[in-house]
C-alpha cells in the first residue's frame, strides 16, 4: 500500500509524509515548506520512520524521530508522527 498525509502545523509549516507499507513502513518521503538543520538530516528522519511496524505507537515514532541529530524548525517530532500515523490509516 502507498499513501500520504498532510499536517498543517498551527502558526507553522506544512508537512507531507508519503510512505509505503505492508507489515512495516518503507519508502518514506518527507516534503513541505518547513526548515531543517542540517538539511541533509531529512534522509535520517525518513530512515527513522522506515522499518517501523504499521501498528507503531505515536510515542515510539516520536522517540525514533527525536533520536535523529537534527533541528526541526516550524514543526516538531509529534507533528511528524501525526502525519505518519495518518498516512497509515
Amino acid at each position, binding site marked *: 500500500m502507498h499513501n500520504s498525509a498532510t499536517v*498543517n502545523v498551527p502558526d507553522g509549516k506544512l508537512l*507531507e509524509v508519503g510512505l509505503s507499507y505492508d507489515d512495516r513502513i518503507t519508502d518514506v*518521503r518527507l516534503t513541505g*515548506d518547513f*526548515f531543517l*538543520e*542540517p*538539511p541533509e538530516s*531529512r534522509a535520517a528522519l525518513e530512515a527513522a520512520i522506515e522499518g517501523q511496524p504499521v501498528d507503531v505507537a505515536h510515542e515510539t515514532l516520536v522517540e525514533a524521530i527525536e533520536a535523529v541529530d537534527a533541528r526541526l524548525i516550524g514543526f516538531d517530532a509529534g507533528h511528524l508522527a501525526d502525519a505518519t500515523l495518518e498516512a497509515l490509516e
Partner: protein
Amino acid sequence: MTARIIDAGTYSEPVQQALEGVLTDRLDAGELDPSLRFWYRDSPAVALGRFQAYADEVAVDYVAEHDIDVVRRLTGGGAMYVEPGAVITYSLYLPQDEVSADIEASYAELDQWAIDALQSVGLDVSHEPLNDISHPEGKIGGSAQLRTDNAVLHHTTMSYDLDIPEMLRVLRIGEEKVSDKAIKSAEKRVARMTDHIEASRADVIDALTSTFADRFDAEPGELSAEAVEEARQRAADRFGTDAWNRQL
C-alpha cells in the same frame, strides 16, 4: 571586519541560488566580510523551498510552456514566484557567532533592520513568526535561513509589484481544485508594496541600503570574479539541473 553591501550583478536564477552557497562557504571559511547582497534577475522564475515537492508547488505544464526556471534553494521554506523588477530579494551572509542561536529569535533579529527601512518609506510592516514580513493586507515577504559551521545565510524576498494573476498561474495555489494545503497558502495573501506606497523600487532599495549602512557601519563591496565563476560552475553542475531541482 567591515560589513559590506554588494549591490550589483544580474544573474539567472540558477546562478543566483548557486551564489548563495558560494558566498556562505566563503564567509564560513573567513574569506568574505559579513555582507548584504541585493539580487537582480534576468527572467521570471520560481524559487522552490529545499524540501518541497516540485509537482506539488508548480504548475508543471505552464512553467514548461513559458520557460520559467524553477530552482530549488539551499534553504527550506515555501515556493516564491519572482519577476525582475517586481520583487526585492536580498541576502545576509553573517558569522554564526554574531547571530542568535535561537533560530526563531534570529529571524526576528535579522528582519528588524529591513522592517525599519520599509517603515521609513511608509509601509506598515512587522515581523510575523516564524519567517514572514507582514502588512495588514497580507504577507509582503518571507525569509529563509541556512546555517553552516561558522556562517548563517538569511535571505528574504519581498513583493514590490508582483503580477499576482501570473503568480497564481505559475504556482499551484492558483488552481481551482484546491487542496487543504492550497487553501492554507492562499489564505496568506500576498501584499504588494505598490498597493500602499508611491516609492519606486530603487527608492525602497536605497532605504534598505542606507538603514543597513547606518546600523552596521557597512561599506560598499563587490563580488569577486572568482566567486561568480564558481557560482556559474555550481549552477551548471547542480542548480540548473533536473537532478537537483526535481529531486522531490
